[in-house]
């Protein structure tokens, strides 16, 4: 059985997102300088943080895969990177919109988070082509894990390098006298991070259980109809589960 606890997770995520939505629009104070557009901050920054953390977590899964040889870890690593890539694109687009609103340009090179976010995207965008170009599923999983571990270490290192390279740092959140984040904003911000993280976890959980279920169905079909009745798998970037050698004959 796959997908245990998915319903509870989905409900919690939905509730958290609804609460965040309400807080962002009705509770968080309007930014003094930037006005309404500053609210994109509650989307962009949490998405960026969750994405970067997800890449590092995926590296952890990859280590577990190489240590244990259990392909479920590869599936977790793959799915995490897959969803993180989508979040990465969302983060780039929202960041770009925010840059346009705040500084008048669609792209700013002196904003380290945004720049390092782009570089990280360019690296992880090669994850799928790499997998796709390896046919043997076992080797594909192993090589993908090696990539994923390197990528996990790349994220913080790249951030350090880019941050040092950008001369000065824009005030990230503006408009309070002491330069810090006003209490009510910080509160909403934390809630937003939690909701986005929950959303991420929910999508990943759905994807993993969907993959596991389709593997199971395939294995059952092969058992019921015979190996030759089921169309062979084409080349794919996604992990595939090999047939069990024990019950094969």
């Amino acid at each position, binding site marked *: 059985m796959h997908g245990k606890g998915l319903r509870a997770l989905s409900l919690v995520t939905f509730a958290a997102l609804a609460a965040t939505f309400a807080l962002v629009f009705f509770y968080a104070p309007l930014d003094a300088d930037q006005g309404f557009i500053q609210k994109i901050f509650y989307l962009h920054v949490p998405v960026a943080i969750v994405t970067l953390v997800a890449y590092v977590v995926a590296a952890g899964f990859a280590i577990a895969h190489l240590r244990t040889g259990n392909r479920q870890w590869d599936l977790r690593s793959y799915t995490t990177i897959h969803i993180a890539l989508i979040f990465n694109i969302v983060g780039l687009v929202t960041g770009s919109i925010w840059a346009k609103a705040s500084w008048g340009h669609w792209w700013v090179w002196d904003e380290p988070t945004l720049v390092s976010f782009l570089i990280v995207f360019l690296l992880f965008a090669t994850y799928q082509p790499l997998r796709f170009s390896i*046919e*043997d*599923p*076992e080797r594909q999983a192993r090589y993908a894990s090696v990539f994923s571990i390197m990528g996990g270490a790349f994220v913080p290192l790249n951030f350090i390098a880019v941050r040092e390279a950008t001369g000065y740092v824009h005030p990230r959140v503006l408009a309070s006298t002491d330069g810090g984040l006003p209490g009510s904003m910080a509160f909403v911000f934390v809630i937003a991070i939690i909701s986005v993280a929950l959303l991420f976890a929910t999508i990943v959980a759905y994807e993993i259980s969907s993959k596991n279920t389709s593997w199971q169905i395939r294995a059952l079909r*092969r058992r019921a109809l015979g*190996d030759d009745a089921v169309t*062979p*798998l084409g080349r794919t970037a996604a992990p*595939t589960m*090999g*047939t069990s*050698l*024990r019950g*094969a*004959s």
Partner: protein
Amino acid sequence: MATAPAIELRGVGRRYGERLALVDVSVSVPAGATLVVFGPNGAGKSTLLRMLATLLRPHAGSARILGEPLPKRDWEVRGRIGLLAHEGMLYRDLSARENLRFHARLHKLPERRVEELLERSELLPRANDPVRTLSRGLLQRVAVCRSVLHDPELLLLDEPRANLDPAARALIEPLIGRVSGRTRVVTSHDPAGGLAEADIALGLRGGRTELLAPAAEVDTIAIEALYR
């Protein structure tokens, strides 16, 4: 032959995605004996050889080579196995001598072992030419030298005589033939010739064992049936 078997496979399997390259192969080969593996292309012969060479790990079952369990202690048997594959496993732009010297260094062998082998296989006149300029027969002789350079206890031969004329066959016979005294696993498409040098015959088809018997009890008709 009271010693432990040189090869002991129990229910060994290897998959390639959903395809099964090798299923439930169990075979035991005493030290010094010769196992000949028959089977059509794609039967799993090469997969079996590569697995015995520690290059592929078994996905199922247990394997013991020269007394050591694989893949857990494969580093114990590395350097005690010689593999002669379809590809020569040589660097094309280096000469025969340079290729062999390189492998001698990896195996910590003295250079006179290289010279000795070059002489025995009558390669000395061409020993300094890049191997890419050698004919297929000469190339195969260099590859044979490479595979027995470190005097391996277990020799894995993938159709070793495919490109050789009778004279060259006679030349390498002491190195890779039965008289070498090594435990051997040989793949073959030649029923009569294969059976003649076998102690045990193994027939594979589609990765599964179709035939496993002492060579004396097998006739060529049973082998030919594998290819039908």
